[in-house]
């Protein structure tokens, strides 16, 4: 950036909208460190979240490939594993401890580090100021802290994978007593402490981020940007942040209590335990209490993962159908309903733990209510597509894929939400299939849609479209090939988390199916690596964006320069005069939000 231009942006940054008040001197000479490392620019922080998320996704995905090898080919030796993992895979066979460490870390990494930080961290940071018309977040400094706390959490979690006794391996939910007692398994030694510390840091990060997102969306909207003119992405990210701010602290409490149980001899979650003939002194705690605390976060967490994807899909679908989103207010209402219900249904994860059955039936009712707003959203997406002038860009394909997966996975949620059916289905592969489709893969699709759609805004270049189409089709077909058969396995009673079920006669019929799933997951993982290549290659060598508004979208981020500097707009922040979805109106393809309402314009 030239000196003159830089000064210009500085002037604009200081103008009108406050910057961090406590930091009046501005950012005159940005060194490499202050521009790319300890950056306070929301766009850079968003990219930092994204790239850290991608690194974690590769690690977490690789873990799933490793344990799929065990599930598909139990007993077979893969000498290469021993080369890389040493005593964890002696003789090329994955040890049980290693297997459990892999599944635990796969869950933790994907749920928290990829789909929470990587997804809402990336897009909340990147899109909120751009789409509401703000120079930056309310507090850029706290925003920077949010990323670095996440980074710290990442370092601790990564470190836990290299300690002698291995990382936490009691499942990503860390239920005590398994996770509370070092005697129980190797992963519950230092690995579990590191897991808890890492999560505490992660919670701080998500809290700092969430507070910033909420106050930015409320306070920093540009003139004319009323709440009902906001793009649905912003609404979704807003509810995501609210969910995080209210539910993560409960996990923090649970984690602190668990740390005490582990290290101070307290009995919050432990009672009546005998290890190797020795009676432990812990008495009077309740292991179910931990599950309550965990799922009070855990269930909203599902929506923390899903809502940003829903918001981005709504936006991308409308842009690429060249039609207004169908039922904007219904979309808002259903987001709100989902956000509230998310807090009321946590115990449906605990139907078979000894939860009071009557209480369980109340949770069944509340759980099934979620079907209503979810169905509203699905119908609105489908009606947005209906008779649209659809452009099948990669982003759009992933958005449509999201809806497909959300329907497929959502339907099985109705099975699992009934406590009676859950008695048969809990802890089987059916559950694995359900949540991977509806929240795992679906949210990944939302994330991919977002990346393909906003990549031009992030880096001023396009991703390679051929690779993108290949990425989409292989991932979509692969996801269904991997997870669809798991429903049948689950209905037949195959438990999840078992590393070798060849001892059961009745499960032997699924041997070939498991091999198929494993082969497909290797292929899908390879295609994700191809996407990562496409991502980094295109940052530097991709086709350049030549117009400020390549998709013909109405929202504010496309009124900024192709490579916006810190402060986003060079002159005044534009004023907003209309909602974000004026597509195909009065014979015009689209009308930007910044255009004043004309005299003889039709009302929508």
């Amino acid at each position, binding site marked *: 950036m030239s000196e003159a231009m830089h000064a210009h942006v500085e002037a604009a940054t200081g103008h009108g*909208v*406050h910057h961090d008040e406590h930091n009046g001197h501005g950012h005159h000479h940005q060194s490499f460190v202050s521009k790319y490392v300890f950056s306070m620019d929301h766009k850079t922080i968003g990219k930092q979240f994204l790239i850290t998320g991608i690194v974690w996704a590769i690690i977490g995905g690789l873990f799933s490939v490793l344990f799929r090898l065990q599930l598909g080919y139990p007993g077979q030796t893969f000498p290469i594993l021993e080369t890389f993992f040493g005593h964890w895979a002696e003789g090329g066979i994955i040890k049980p401890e290693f297997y459990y460490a892999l599944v635990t870390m796969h869950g933790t990494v994907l749920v928290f580090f990829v789909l929470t930080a990587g997804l809402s961290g990336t897009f909340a940071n990147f899109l909120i100021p751009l789409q509401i018309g703000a120079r930056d977040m309310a507090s850029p400094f706290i925003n920077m802290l949010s990323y670095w706390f996440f980074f710290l959490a990442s370092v601790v979690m990564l470190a836990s994978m290299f300690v002698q006794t291995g990382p936490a391996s009691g499942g990503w939910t860390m239920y005590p007593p398994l996770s509370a007692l070092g005697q129980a398994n190797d992963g519950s030694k230092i690995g579990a402490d590191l897991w808890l510390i890492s999560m505490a840091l992660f919670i701080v990060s998500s809290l700092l981020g969430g507070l910033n997102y909420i106050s930015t969306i409320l306070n920093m909207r540009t003139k004319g940007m009323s709440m009902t003119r906001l793009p649905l992405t912003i609404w979704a990210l807003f509810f995501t942040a609210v969910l995080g701010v209210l539910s993560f602290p409960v996990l923090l409490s649970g984690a602190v209590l668990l740390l005490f149980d582990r290290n101070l001899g307290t009995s919050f979650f432990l009672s009546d335990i005998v290890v190797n003939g020795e009676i432990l002194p812990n008495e009077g705690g*309740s292991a179910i*209490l931990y599950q*309550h605390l965990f799922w009070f976060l855990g269930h909203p967490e599902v929506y923390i993962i899903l809502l940003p994807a829903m918001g981005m899909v709504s936006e991308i679908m409308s842009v690429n159908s060249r039609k207004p989103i169908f039922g904007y207010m219904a979309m808002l209402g259903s987001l709100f309903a989902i956000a509230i219900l998310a*807090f009321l249904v946590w*115990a449906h994860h605990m139907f078979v733990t*000894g939860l009071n059955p009557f*209480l369980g039936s109340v949770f069944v009712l509340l759980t099934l209510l979620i079907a209503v707003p979810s169905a509203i959203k699905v119908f609105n997406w489908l009606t947005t597509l209906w008779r649209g002038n659809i452009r099948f860009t990669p982003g759009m394909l992933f958005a449509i894929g999201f809806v497909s997966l959300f329907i497929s996975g959502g339907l099985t949620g109705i099975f699992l939400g009934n406590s009676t059916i859950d008695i048969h289905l809990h802890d089987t592969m059916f559950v694995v299939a359900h949540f991977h489709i509806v929240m795992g893969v679906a949210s990944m699709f939302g994330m991919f849609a977002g990346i393909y759609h906003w990549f031009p805004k992030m880096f001023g270049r396009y991703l390679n479209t051929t690779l993108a189409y290949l990425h989409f089709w292989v991932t979509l077909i692969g996801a269904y090939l991997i997870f669809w058969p798991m429903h049948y396995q689950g209905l037949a009673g195959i438990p999840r988390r078992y590393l070798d079920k060849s001892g059961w006669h009745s499960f032997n019929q699924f041997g070939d199916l498991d091999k198929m799933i494993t082969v497909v997951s290797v292929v899908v993982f390879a295609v994700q690596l191809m996407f990562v290549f496409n991502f980094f290659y295109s940052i530097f060598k991709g086709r350049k964006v030549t117009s400020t508004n390549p998709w013909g979208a109405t929202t504010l981020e496309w009124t900024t320069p192709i490579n916006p500097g810190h402060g986003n707009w060079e002159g005044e922040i534009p004023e907003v005069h209309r909602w974000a979805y004026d597509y195909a109106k009065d014979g015009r393809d689209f009308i930007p939000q910044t255009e004043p309402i004309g005299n003889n314009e039709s009302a929508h």
Partner: protein
Amino acid sequence: MEHQAISSEITFEHHTDDATFRKKVVRTTILLTVITIIELILGVGIYLIHKGPDPNAMLVLFFKGLVCILTLAKAYYIVSVFMHLGDEIRNMIMTIVVPLLLFIWFIIAFIVDGNSYKNLRNTYDKHFQETTTPKPHHGAEKAPVAEPQPGKQ
């Protein structure tokens, strides 16, 4: 400097004159003190009932309920007057109060399940029931008991 705009986010600033302010603070302080004293009296009352020869469980429960309500009243005054939430505009008050409603279900579900866990153990873990259930003479602390109690370890 008094009327300098703090930031463009602010539309108008609050102004309270000294006299009303002082009156309000003094009144609230006295209120909080009085409520606390009533709570203490109730607390001592509960203690005396427990200590007495024939504790009335319903009365204790009633006292405890009263204390809870008084605590909520205290919380209301602290938030509304000391934290000035009462002076904010209505929408702001709502964004604070409405999410707190989640506590209702949070508390009910947790407590009900805790209670249910106790009942489960009393039904299926006789040792737990026998060793932890308060004996009938609990509360009658002064009364010497000569005969051995059943279920005593």
